[in-house]
Protein backbone atom coordinates (compact mmCIF):
# COMPACT_ATOMS: atom_id res chain seq x y z
CA UNK A 1 0.00 0.00 0.00
CA UNK A 2 1.33 3.40 -0.84
CA UNK A 3 1.11 5.41 2.34
CA UNK A 4 3.11 8.40 1.16
CA UNK A 5 0.00 10.58 1.00
CA UNK A 6 -0.94 9.92 4.61
CA UNK A 7 -1.01 12.84 6.96
CA UNK A 8 -0.85 12.29 10.70
CA UNK A 9 -1.74 15.95 11.22
CA UNK A 10 -5.12 15.11 9.71
CA UNK A 11 -5.77 12.48 12.39
CA UNK A 12 -8.97 12.99 14.34
CA UNK A 13 -8.70 13.06 18.12
CA UNK A 14 -8.33 9.68 19.89
CA UNK A 15 -11.86 9.98 21.29
CA UNK A 16 -13.43 10.10 17.83
CA UNK A 17 -12.87 6.48 16.65
CA UNK A 18 -12.71 5.09 20.20
CA UNK A 19 -16.23 6.33 20.96
CA UNK A 20 -17.44 3.85 18.30
CA UNK A 21 -15.13 1.07 19.54
CA UNK A 22 -16.47 1.44 23.08
CA UNK A 23 -20.10 1.50 21.96
CA UNK A 24 -19.77 -1.65 19.82
CA UNK A 25 -19.25 -4.09 22.76
CA UNK A 26 -22.38 -2.63 24.40
CA UNK A 27 -24.36 -3.79 21.35
CA UNK A 28 -22.64 -7.18 21.53
CA UNK A 29 -23.83 -7.39 25.14
CA UNK A 30 -27.35 -6.55 23.99
CA UNK A 31 -27.00 -9.27 21.34
CA UNK A 32 -25.90 -11.71 24.07
CA UNK A 33 -29.03 -10.83 26.02
CA UNK A 34 -31.24 -11.58 22.98
CA UNK A 35 -29.31 -14.83 22.40
CA UNK A 36 -30.43 -15.98 25.84
CA UNK A 37 -33.97 -16.34 24.49
CA UNK A 38 -34.23 -20.05 23.65
CA UNK A 39 -37.16 -19.66 21.20
CA UNK A 40 -34.74 -18.14 18.67
CA UNK A 41 -34.05 -21.41 16.94
CA UNK A 42 -37.61 -22.40 16.02
CA UNK A 43 -37.05 -21.09 12.51
CA UNK A 44 -34.53 -18.89 10.72
CA UNK A 45 -37.42 -16.51 10.03
CA UNK A 46 -38.16 -16.01 13.75
CA UNK A 47 -38.28 -12.24 14.49
CA UNK A 48 -36.13 -12.67 17.64
CA UNK A 49 -33.40 -14.41 15.60
CA UNK A 50 -33.49 -11.70 12.94
CA UNK A 51 -33.37 -9.00 15.64
CA UNK A 52 -30.40 -10.69 17.35
CA UNK A 53 -28.50 -11.09 14.07
CA UNK A 54 -28.93 -7.39 13.28
CA UNK A 55 -27.82 -6.31 16.75
CA UNK A 56 -24.52 -8.09 16.05
CA UNK A 57 -24.12 -7.16 12.38
CA UNK A 58 -25.16 -3.52 12.67
CA UNK A 59 -24.66 -2.74 16.35
CA UNK A 60 -21.27 -4.40 16.64
CA UNK A 61 -19.79 -4.90 13.16
CA UNK A 62 -21.07 -1.70 11.48
CA UNK A 63 -20.28 0.37 14.58
CA UNK A 64 -16.64 -0.81 14.58
CA UNK A 65 -16.32 -0.23 10.83
CA UNK A 66 -17.69 3.31 11.15
CA UNK A 67 -15.19 3.99 13.94
CA UNK A 68 -12.37 2.72 11.75
CA UNK A 69 -13.56 4.92 8.87
CA UNK A 70 -13.62 8.08 11.02
CA UNK A 71 -9.95 7.37 11.68
CA UNK A 72 -8.89 6.30 8.19
CA UNK A 73 -10.76 8.74 5.93
CA UNK A 74 -9.21 12.01 7.20
CA UNK A 75 -5.73 10.42 7.21
CA UNK A 76 -6.14 9.00 3.70
CA UNK A 77 -7.48 12.29 2.37
CA UNK A 78 -4.25 13.89 3.62
CA UNK A 79 -5.88 17.11 4.76
CA UNK A 80 -8.61 16.00 7.15
CA UNK A 81 -12.20 17.11 7.23
CA UNK A 82 -13.33 20.33 8.86
CA UNK A 83 -15.03 19.65 12.20
CA UNK A 84 -14.31 15.91 11.92
CA UNK A 85 -14.60 15.40 15.68
CA UNK A 86 -17.93 17.17 16.14
CA UNK A 87 -19.39 15.67 12.92
CA UNK A 88 -18.38 12.20 14.07
CA UNK A 89 -20.00 12.84 17.46
CA UNK A 90 -23.35 13.68 15.83
CA UNK A 91 -22.94 10.75 13.43
CA UNK A 92 -22.26 8.41 16.36
CA UNK A 93 -25.28 9.71 18.29
CA UNK A 94 -27.67 9.24 15.36
CA UNK A 95 -26.29 5.79 14.52
CA UNK A 96 -26.47 4.61 18.13
CA UNK A 97 -30.06 5.83 18.50
CA UNK A 98 -31.03 4.19 15.19
CA UNK A 99 -29.38 0.91 16.07
CA UNK A 100 -31.02 0.84 19.51
CA UNK A 101 -34.44 1.26 17.93
CA UNK A 102 -33.76 -1.07 15.00
CA UNK A 103 -34.24 -4.51 16.71
CA UNK A 104 -37.68 -3.42 17.91
CA UNK A 105 -38.82 -3.47 14.26
CA UNK A 106 -38.77 -7.25 14.53
CA UNK A 107 -40.30 -7.40 17.98
CA UNK A 108 -43.03 -4.72 17.86
CA UNK A 109 -44.11 -4.26 14.22
CA UNK A 110 -44.91 -0.59 13.61
CA UNK A 111 -44.79 1.51 10.44
CA UNK A 112 -43.74 4.58 12.43
CA UNK A 113 -40.81 2.63 13.86
CA UNK A 114 -39.68 1.61 10.34
CA UNK A 115 -39.65 5.24 9.22
CA UNK A 116 -37.88 6.41 12.37
CA UNK A 117 -35.21 3.69 12.13
CA UNK A 118 -34.66 4.20 8.43
CA UNK A 119 -34.08 7.94 8.94
CA UNK A 120 -31.83 7.53 11.99
CA UNK A 121 -29.61 4.92 10.32
CA UNK A 122 -29.84 6.07 6.70
CA UNK A 123 -28.85 9.73 7.32
CA UNK A 124 -25.44 9.01 8.95
CA UNK A 125 -24.73 6.14 6.56
CA UNK A 126 -25.46 8.26 3.48
CA UNK A 127 -23.12 10.92 4.87
CA UNK A 128 -20.47 8.25 5.40
CA UNK A 129 -20.94 6.85 1.86
CA UNK A 130 -20.59 10.39 0.46
CA UNK A 131 -17.32 10.94 2.36
CA UNK A 132 -15.99 7.51 1.36
CA UNK A 133 -16.68 8.16 -2.32
CA UNK A 134 -15.12 11.65 -2.05
CA UNK A 135 -11.93 10.35 -0.44
CA UNK A 136 -11.55 7.21 -2.54
CA UNK A 137 -12.01 9.18 -5.78
CA UNK A 138 -9.07 11.40 -4.83
CA UNK A 139 -6.86 8.61 -3.42
CA UNK A 140 -4.67 6.42 -5.58
CA UNK A 141 -6.20 2.96 -5.53
CA UNK A 142 -4.38 -0.14 -4.30
CA UNK A 143 -5.38 -3.72 -3.56
CA UNK A 144 -6.80 -2.88 -0.13
CA UNK A 145 -8.81 0.12 -1.27
CA UNK A 146 -10.03 -1.78 -4.35
CA UNK A 147 -11.30 -4.63 -2.17
CA UNK A 148 -13.00 -2.15 0.19
CA UNK A 149 -14.64 -0.45 -2.80
CA UNK A 150 -16.14 -3.81 -3.83
CA UNK A 151 -17.26 -4.27 -0.21
CA UNK A 152 -18.89 -0.82 -0.45
CA UNK A 153 -21.00 -1.97 -3.42
CA UNK A 154 -22.08 -4.99 -1.39
CA UNK A 155 -22.95 -2.75 1.59
CA UNK A 156 -25.11 -0.48 -0.57
CA UNK A 157 -26.92 -3.53 -1.97
CA UNK A 158 -27.29 -5.04 1.52
CA UNK A 159 -28.76 -1.81 2.90
CA UNK A 160 -31.15 -1.30 -0.01
CA UNK A 161 -32.36 -4.91 0.01
CA UNK A 162 -32.69 -4.76 3.80
CA UNK A 163 -34.73 -1.56 3.69
CA UNK A 164 -36.88 -3.02 0.91
CA UNK A 165 -37.60 -6.11 2.98
CA UNK A 166 -38.30 -4.11 6.12
CA UNK A 167 -40.76 -2.01 4.13
CA UNK A 168 -42.40 -5.00 2.46
CA UNK A 169 -42.65 -6.74 5.88
CA UNK A 170 -45.00 -3.95 6.93
CA UNK A 171 -46.60 -2.78 3.70
CA UNK A 172 -46.67 -5.84 1.42
CA UNK A 173 -47.47 -9.53 1.74
CA UNK A 174 -44.51 -11.87 2.30
CA UNK A 175 -43.69 -13.78 -0.87
CA UNK A 176 -41.30 -16.40 -2.21
CA UNK A 177 -39.31 -13.60 -3.88
CA UNK A 178 -39.01 -11.99 -0.43
CA UNK A 179 -37.36 -15.13 0.94
CA UNK A 180 -34.94 -15.34 -1.99
CA UNK A 181 -34.12 -11.66 -1.46
CA UNK A 182 -33.45 -12.39 2.22
CA UNK A 183 -30.89 -15.01 1.18
CA UNK A 184 -29.29 -12.57 -1.25
CA UNK A 185 -29.31 -9.88 1.49
CA UNK A 186 -27.55 -12.32 3.84
CA UNK A 187 -25.01 -13.37 1.20
CA UNK A 188 -24.15 -9.79 0.21
CA UNK A 189 -24.03 -8.70 3.85
CA UNK A 190 -21.87 -11.41 5.40
CA UNK A 191 -19.90 -12.74 2.43
CA UNK A 192 -19.80 -9.49 0.47
CA UNK A 193 -19.64 -6.37 2.60
CA UNK A 194 -17.95 -7.86 5.66
CA UNK A 195 -15.69 -10.52 4.14
CA UNK A 196 -14.44 -8.28 1.33
CA UNK A 197 -13.65 -5.61 3.93
CA UNK A 198 -11.82 -8.20 6.05
CA UNK A 199 -9.85 -9.32 2.98
CA UNK A 200 -8.93 -5.76 1.96
CA UNK A 201 -7.88 -4.81 5.48
CA UNK A 202 -5.92 -8.04 5.97
CA UNK A 203 -3.82 -7.44 2.83
CA UNK A 204 -2.49 -4.40 4.67
CA UNK A 205 -2.56 -5.21 8.38
CA UNK A 206 -1.33 -8.83 8.48
CA UNK A 207 2.05 -8.14 6.83
CA UNK A 208 2.40 -4.82 8.66
CA UNK A 209 1.36 -5.67 12.23
CA UNK A 210 2.44 -9.30 12.31
CA UNK A 211 5.70 -9.03 10.31
CA UNK A 212 4.82 -11.63 7.68
CA UNK A 213 5.59 -11.68 3.96
CA UNK A 214 3.07 -9.95 1.68
CA UNK A 215 0.05 -11.92 0.41
CA UNK A 216 0.80 -13.61 -2.95
CA UNK A 217 0.01 -11.19 -5.81
CA UNK A 218 -2.57 -13.60 -7.25
CA UNK A 219 -4.53 -13.59 -3.99
CA UNK A 220 -4.30 -9.82 -3.47
CA UNK A 221 -5.17 -8.80 -7.01
CA UNK A 222 -7.48 -11.49 -8.36
CA UNK A 223 -9.26 -13.04 -5.38
CA UNK A 224 -11.47 -10.06 -4.34
CA UNK A 225 -12.63 -9.67 -7.96
CA UNK A 226 -13.35 -13.40 -8.26
CA UNK A 227 -15.22 -13.32 -4.94
CA UNK A 228 -17.33 -10.34 -6.01
CA UNK A 229 -18.17 -11.85 -9.42
CA UNK A 230 -19.08 -15.14 -7.76
CA UNK A 231 -21.46 -13.32 -5.37
CA UNK A 232 -23.14 -11.61 -8.34
CA UNK A 233 -23.46 -14.99 -10.07
CA UNK A 234 -24.89 -16.55 -6.92
CA UNK A 235 -27.41 -13.74 -6.47
CA UNK A 236 -28.44 -14.04 -10.13
CA UNK A 237 -28.71 -17.83 -9.82
CA UNK A 238 -30.89 -17.60 -6.70
CA UNK A 239 -33.18 -14.88 -8.07
CA UNK A 240 -33.65 -16.60 -11.46
CA UNK A 241 -33.72 -20.05 -9.83
CA UNK A 242 -30.97 -21.12 -12.22
CA UNK A 243 -29.31 -24.25 -10.82
CA UNK A 244 -26.28 -24.07 -13.16
CA UNK A 245 -25.31 -20.52 -12.11
CA UNK A 246 -25.90 -21.36 -8.44
CA UNK A 247 -23.65 -24.44 -8.57
CA UNK A 248 -20.99 -22.60 -10.54
CA UNK A 249 -21.09 -19.85 -7.92
CA UNK A 250 -20.75 -22.42 -5.12
CA UNK A 251 -17.60 -23.80 -6.81
CA UNK A 252 -16.24 -20.24 -7.18
CA UNK A 253 -16.99 -19.47 -3.52
CA UNK A 254 -15.05 -22.57 -2.48
CA UNK A 255 -12.06 -21.35 -4.49
CA UNK A 256 -12.16 -17.82 -3.06
CA UNK A 257 -12.89 -18.71 0.58
CA UNK A 258 -10.50 -21.66 0.80
CA UNK A 259 -7.84 -19.80 -1.21
CA UNK A 260 -8.04 -16.74 1.05
CA UNK A 261 -8.10 -18.69 4.34
CA UNK A 262 -5.22 -20.98 3.41
CA UNK A 263 -3.00 -18.17 2.14
CA UNK A 264 -3.62 -16.06 5.27
CA UNK A 265 -3.02 -19.06 7.55
CA UNK A 266 0.21 -19.76 5.65
CA UNK A 267 1.33 -16.14 6.16
CA UNK A 268 0.95 -16.52 9.93
CA UNK A 269 3.34 -19.50 9.85
CA UNK A 270 5.92 -17.16 8.25
CA UNK A 271 6.01 -14.54 11.04
CA UNK A 272 9.54 -13.23 11.66
CA UNK A 273 9.06 -13.14 15.44
CA UNK A 274 6.75 -15.82 16.71
CA UNK A 275 5.79 -14.07 19.95
CA UNK A 276 2.46 -15.01 21.58
CA UNK A 277 -0.16 -12.57 20.36
CA UNK A 278 -3.91 -12.69 21.08
CA UNK A 279 -4.66 -10.85 17.81
CA UNK A 280 -2.87 -13.58 15.85
CA UNK A 281 -4.90 -16.20 17.75
CA UNK A 282 -8.15 -14.42 16.86
CA UNK A 283 -7.10 -14.24 13.19
CA UNK A 284 -6.20 -17.93 13.11
CA UNK A 285 -9.48 -18.86 14.80
CA UNK A 286 -11.39 -16.76 12.28
CA UNK A 287 -9.63 -18.29 9.28
CA UNK A 288 -10.12 -21.86 10.57
CA UNK A 289 -13.82 -21.08 11.21
CA UNK A 290 -14.12 -19.85 7.61
CA UNK A 291 -12.85 -23.23 6.39
CA UNK A 292 -15.18 -24.96 8.85
CA UNK A 293 -18.17 -22.94 7.59
CA UNK A 294 -17.44 -24.08 4.03
CA UNK A 295 -17.22 -27.73 5.16
CA UNK A 296 -20.41 -27.61 7.25
CA UNK A 297 -22.29 -25.95 4.40
CA UNK A 298 -21.22 -28.76 2.05
CA UNK A 299 -22.41 -31.35 4.56
CA UNK A 300 -25.76 -29.53 4.90
CA UNK A 301 -26.45 -30.10 1.20
CA UNK A 302 -26.38 -33.87 1.63
CA UNK A 303 -28.40 -34.40 4.83
CA UNK A 304 -32.16 -34.73 5.27
CA UNK A 305 -34.32 -31.65 5.66
CA UNK A 306 -34.70 -31.80 9.46
CA UNK A 307 -30.96 -31.35 9.88
CA UNK A 308 -30.51 -28.95 6.98
CA UNK A 309 -31.93 -25.83 8.65
CA UNK A 310 -29.96 -26.09 11.95
CA UNK A 311 -26.80 -26.89 9.98
CA UNK A 312 -27.26 -23.85 7.76
CA UNK A 313 -27.96 -21.70 10.84
CA UNK A 314 -24.69 -23.09 12.22
CA UNK A 315 -22.89 -21.99 9.04
CA UNK A 316 -24.26 -18.44 9.38
CA UNK A 317 -23.30 -18.36 13.09
CA UNK A 318 -19.85 -19.73 12.25
CA UNK A 319 -19.29 -16.90 9.73
CA UNK A 320 -20.76 -14.22 12.02
CA UNK A 321 -19.19 -15.22 15.35
CA UNK A 322 -16.31 -17.52 14.41
CA UNK A 323 -14.99 -15.43 11.53
CA UNK A 324 -16.20 -11.83 11.61
CA UNK A 325 -16.66 -11.08 15.30
CA UNK A 326 -13.52 -13.06 16.22
CA UNK A 327 -11.37 -11.12 13.73
CA UNK A 328 -12.85 -7.78 14.86
CA UNK A 329 -12.15 -8.66 18.53
CA UNK A 330 -8.54 -9.40 17.56
CA UNK A 331 -8.12 -6.22 15.55
CA UNK A 332 -9.59 -4.05 18.33
CA UNK A 333 -7.01 -5.51 20.72
CA UNK A 334 -4.25 -4.37 18.38
CA UNK A 335 -5.59 -1.14 16.91
CA UNK A 336 -7.02 0.68 19.94
CA UNK A 337 -3.76 0.55 21.99
CA UNK A 338 -1.87 1.40 18.78
CA UNK A 339 -3.99 4.52 18.25
CA UNK A 340 -3.48 5.50 21.89
CA UNK A 341 0.27 5.08 21.40
CA UNK A 342 0.21 7.11 18.17
CA UNK A 343 -1.53 10.09 19.80
CA UNK A 344 0.67 10.02 22.90
CA UNK A 345 3.77 9.63 20.74
CA UNK A 346 2.81 12.69 18.67
CA UNK A 347 2.31 14.67 21.85
CA UNK A 348 5.56 13.48 23.42
CA UNK A 349 7.54 14.42 20.28
CA UNK A 350 6.43 18.05 20.59
CA UNK A 351 8.97 18.73 23.31
CA UNK A 352 12.48 17.53 24.14
CA UNK A 353 11.33 17.24 27.77
CA UNK A 354 8.85 14.49 26.92
CA UNK A 355 10.55 12.84 23.91
CA UNK A 356 12.03 10.06 26.04
CA UNK A 357 8.70 9.41 27.81
CA UNK A 358 7.14 7.59 24.87
CA UNK A 359 5.02 4.75 26.29
CA UNK A 360 4.88 1.16 25.10
CA UNK A 361 1.66 -0.41 23.80
CA UNK A 362 1.64 -2.74 26.80
CA UNK A 363 1.25 0.29 29.07
CA UNK A 364 -2.18 0.79 27.52
CA UNK A 365 -3.18 -2.88 27.40
CA UNK A 366 -1.19 -5.80 28.82
CA UNK A 367 -0.91 -8.76 26.43
CA UNK A 368 -2.26 -11.13 29.12
CA UNK A 369 -5.63 -9.33 29.02
CA UNK A 370 -5.93 -10.07 25.31
CA UNK A 371 -5.22 -13.76 25.92
CA UNK A 372 -7.93 -13.87 28.61
CA UNK A 373 -10.39 -12.41 26.11
CA UNK A 374 -9.37 -15.03 23.54
CA UNK A 375 -9.86 -17.94 25.98
CA UNK A 376 -13.30 -16.57 26.90
CA UNK A 377 -14.17 -16.38 23.21
CA UNK A 378 -13.04 -19.98 22.68
CA UNK A 379 -15.47 -21.07 25.41
CA UNK A 380 -18.44 -19.16 24.01
CA UNK A 381 -17.97 -20.14 20.37
CA UNK A 382 -18.90 -23.88 20.57
CA UNK A 383 -21.94 -22.97 22.69
CA UNK A 384 -23.16 -20.47 20.10
CA UNK A 385 -22.53 -22.87 17.21
CA UNK A 386 -24.38 -25.75 18.88
CA UNK A 387 -27.34 -23.67 20.08
CA UNK A 388 -29.46 -24.32 16.92
CA UNK A 389 -29.24 -28.07 17.73
CA UNK A 390 -29.77 -27.72 21.46
CA UNK A 391 -31.82 -24.56 22.18
CA UNK A 392 -31.28 -24.96 25.94
CA UNK A 393 -27.63 -23.99 25.27
CA UNK A 394 -28.87 -20.54 24.23
CA UNK A 395 -29.08 -19.29 27.80
CA UNK A 396 -25.51 -20.33 28.50
CA UNK A 397 -24.22 -19.09 25.11
CA UNK A 398 -25.97 -15.73 25.51
CA UNK A 399 -24.62 -15.39 29.05
CA UNK A 400 -21.07 -16.08 27.85
CA UNK A 401 -21.42 -13.55 25.00
CA UNK A 402 -22.58 -11.00 27.59
CA UNK A 403 -19.57 -11.68 29.83
CA UNK A 404 -16.98 -11.73 27.01
CA UNK A 405 -18.40 -8.57 25.37
CA UNK A 406 -18.43 -6.85 28.79
CA UNK A 407 -14.75 -7.80 29.18
CA UNK A 408 -13.96 -6.32 25.76
CA UNK A 409 -15.78 -3.15 26.83
CA UNK A 410 -13.68 -3.07 30.01
CA UNK A 411 -10.45 -3.43 27.99
CA UNK A 412 -11.42 -0.67 25.55
CA UNK A 413 -12.43 1.63 28.44
CA UNK A 414 -9.14 0.82 30.22
CA UNK A 415 -7.13 1.94 27.18
CA UNK A 416 -9.18 5.15 27.01
CA UNK A 417 -8.67 5.94 30.72
CA UNK A 418 -4.93 5.20 30.56
CA UNK A 419 -4.64 7.36 27.44
CA UNK A 420 -6.31 10.30 29.20
CA UNK A 421 -3.95 9.91 32.17
CA UNK A 422 -0.85 9.70 29.96
CA UNK A 423 -1.97 12.73 27.94
CA UNK A 424 -2.52 14.76 31.14
CA UNK A 425 0.92 13.73 32.49
CA UNK A 426 2.71 14.75 29.29
CA UNK A 427 0.91 18.08 29.04
CA UNK A 428 1.79 18.91 32.61
CA UNK A 429 5.50 18.08 32.06
CA UNK A 430 5.53 20.19 28.89
CA UNK A 431 3.92 23.11 30.73
CA UNK A 432 6.46 22.85 33.54
CA UNK A 433 9.41 22.72 31.13
CA UNK A 434 8.10 25.85 29.36
CA UNK A 435 7.89 27.69 32.69
CA UNK A 436 11.46 26.66 33.54
Amino acid at each position, binding site marked *: MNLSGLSLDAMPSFQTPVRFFVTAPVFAMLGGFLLMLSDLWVSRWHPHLIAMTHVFTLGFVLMVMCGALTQILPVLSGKGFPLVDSTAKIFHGLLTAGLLVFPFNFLIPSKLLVLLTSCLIAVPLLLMVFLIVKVFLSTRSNVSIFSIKLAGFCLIFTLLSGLWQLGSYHWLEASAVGKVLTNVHLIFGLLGWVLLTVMGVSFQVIPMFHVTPEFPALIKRRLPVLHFVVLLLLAGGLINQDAVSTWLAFVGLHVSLIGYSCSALWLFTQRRRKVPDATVNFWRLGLVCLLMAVGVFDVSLFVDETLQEPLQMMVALCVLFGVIIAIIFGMLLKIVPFLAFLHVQQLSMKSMATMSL*MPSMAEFLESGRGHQLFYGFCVLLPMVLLAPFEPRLSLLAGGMVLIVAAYLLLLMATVWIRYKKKEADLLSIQEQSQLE
Partner: protein
Amino acid sequence: MPELSSEINQGFDSAGRPCVLLDVSGFEPPEPFKQIVKALASLKAGDALHVVHRREPFPLYQQLPGLGYEYQTVQHIDGLYHIYIWHRSHKDKD
Protein backbone atom coordinates in the same frame (compact mmCIF):
# COMPACT_ATOMS: atom_id res chain seq x y z
CA MET B 1 10.07 7.44 -4.45
CA PRO B 2 13.35 6.25 -2.93
CA GLU B 3 16.31 5.42 -5.13
CA LEU B 4 16.48 1.68 -5.99
CA SER B 5 19.95 0.22 -5.54
CA SER B 6 21.77 -3.10 -5.45
CA GLU B 7 24.56 -1.64 -3.29
CA ILE B 8 24.10 -0.27 0.19
CA ASN B 9 26.61 1.87 2.08
CA GLN B 10 27.67 0.10 5.26
CA GLY B 11 29.39 1.98 8.07
CA PHE B 12 29.27 5.34 6.26
CA ASP B 13 26.48 7.22 4.51
CA SER B 14 26.76 8.80 1.05
CA ALA B 15 28.29 11.96 2.57
CA GLY B 16 30.92 9.93 4.44
CA ARG B 17 29.43 10.33 7.92
CA PRO B 18 30.04 7.33 10.22
CA CYS B 19 26.81 5.37 10.63
CA VAL B 20 25.29 3.50 13.52
CA LEU B 21 23.36 0.53 12.14
CA LEU B 22 19.85 -0.19 13.43
CA ASP B 23 17.89 -3.09 11.92
CA VAL B 24 14.18 -2.81 12.77
CA SER B 25 12.95 -4.99 9.91
CA GLY B 26 11.80 -7.78 12.25
CA PHE B 27 9.67 -5.62 14.53
CA GLU B 28 5.98 -4.80 14.38
CA PRO B 29 4.69 -1.22 14.72
CA PRO B 30 5.22 0.87 16.79
CA GLU B 31 8.49 -0.77 17.93
CA PRO B 32 10.59 0.48 14.92
CA PHE B 33 9.53 4.08 15.58
CA LYS B 34 10.42 3.82 19.27
CA GLN B 35 13.80 2.23 18.58
CA ILE B 36 14.69 4.84 15.95
CA VAL B 37 13.78 7.77 18.23
CA LYS B 38 15.78 6.18 21.08
CA ALA B 39 18.79 5.66 18.77
CA LEU B 40 18.60 9.24 17.48
CA ALA B 41 18.59 10.56 21.04
CA SER B 42 21.86 8.73 21.79
CA LEU B 43 23.54 9.49 18.45
CA LYS B 44 27.00 11.12 18.74
CA ALA B 45 27.52 14.53 17.13
CA GLY B 46 28.56 14.09 13.48
CA ASP B 47 27.26 10.51 13.23
CA ALA B 48 24.34 9.32 11.17
CA LEU B 49 21.83 6.55 11.84
CA HIS B 50 21.47 3.81 9.25
CA VAL B 51 18.04 2.20 9.67
CA VAL B 52 17.05 -1.04 7.92
CA HIS B 53 13.25 -1.20 7.64
CA ARG B 54 10.66 -3.39 5.88
CA ARG B 55 8.55 -0.35 5.00
CA GLU B 56 9.03 3.35 4.41
CA PRO B 57 8.33 4.99 7.79
CA PHE B 58 6.18 7.89 6.58
CA PRO B 59 5.01 8.90 10.09
CA LEU B 60 8.68 9.18 11.10
CA TYR B 61 9.49 11.26 8.00
CA GLN B 62 6.80 13.74 9.10
CA GLN B 63 8.40 14.13 12.54
CA LEU B 64 12.07 14.36 11.53
CA PRO B 65 12.25 17.93 10.08
CA GLY B 66 10.61 19.35 13.21
CA LEU B 67 13.30 17.72 15.34
CA GLY B 68 16.09 19.07 13.14
CA TYR B 69 16.91 15.86 11.26
CA GLU B 70 17.35 15.17 7.56
CA TYR B 71 17.14 11.79 5.88
CA GLN B 72 17.85 9.92 2.69
CA THR B 73 16.15 6.66 1.71
CA VAL B 74 17.50 3.95 -0.59
CA GLN B 75 15.54 0.82 -1.45
CA HIS B 76 17.66 -2.29 -1.92
CA ILE B 77 16.63 -4.69 -4.67
CA ASP B 78 15.72 -7.22 -1.94
CA GLY B 79 12.85 -4.86 -0.99
CA LEU B 80 14.28 -3.56 2.30
CA TYR B 81 14.51 0.19 2.88
CA HIS B 82 17.78 1.74 4.10
CA ILE B 83 17.21 5.12 5.71
CA TYR B 84 20.14 7.37 6.65
CA ILE B 85 19.25 10.03 9.23
CA TRP B 86 21.51 12.83 10.43
CA HIS B 87 21.09 16.05 12.37
CA ARG B 88 20.87 19.15 10.20
CA SER B 89 23.48 20.98 12.31
CA HIS B 90 26.01 18.23 11.57
CA LYS B 91 25.53 18.71 7.84
CA ASP B 92 26.03 22.47 8.21
CA LYS B 93 29.39 21.85 9.92
CA ASP B 94 30.49 19.77 6.91
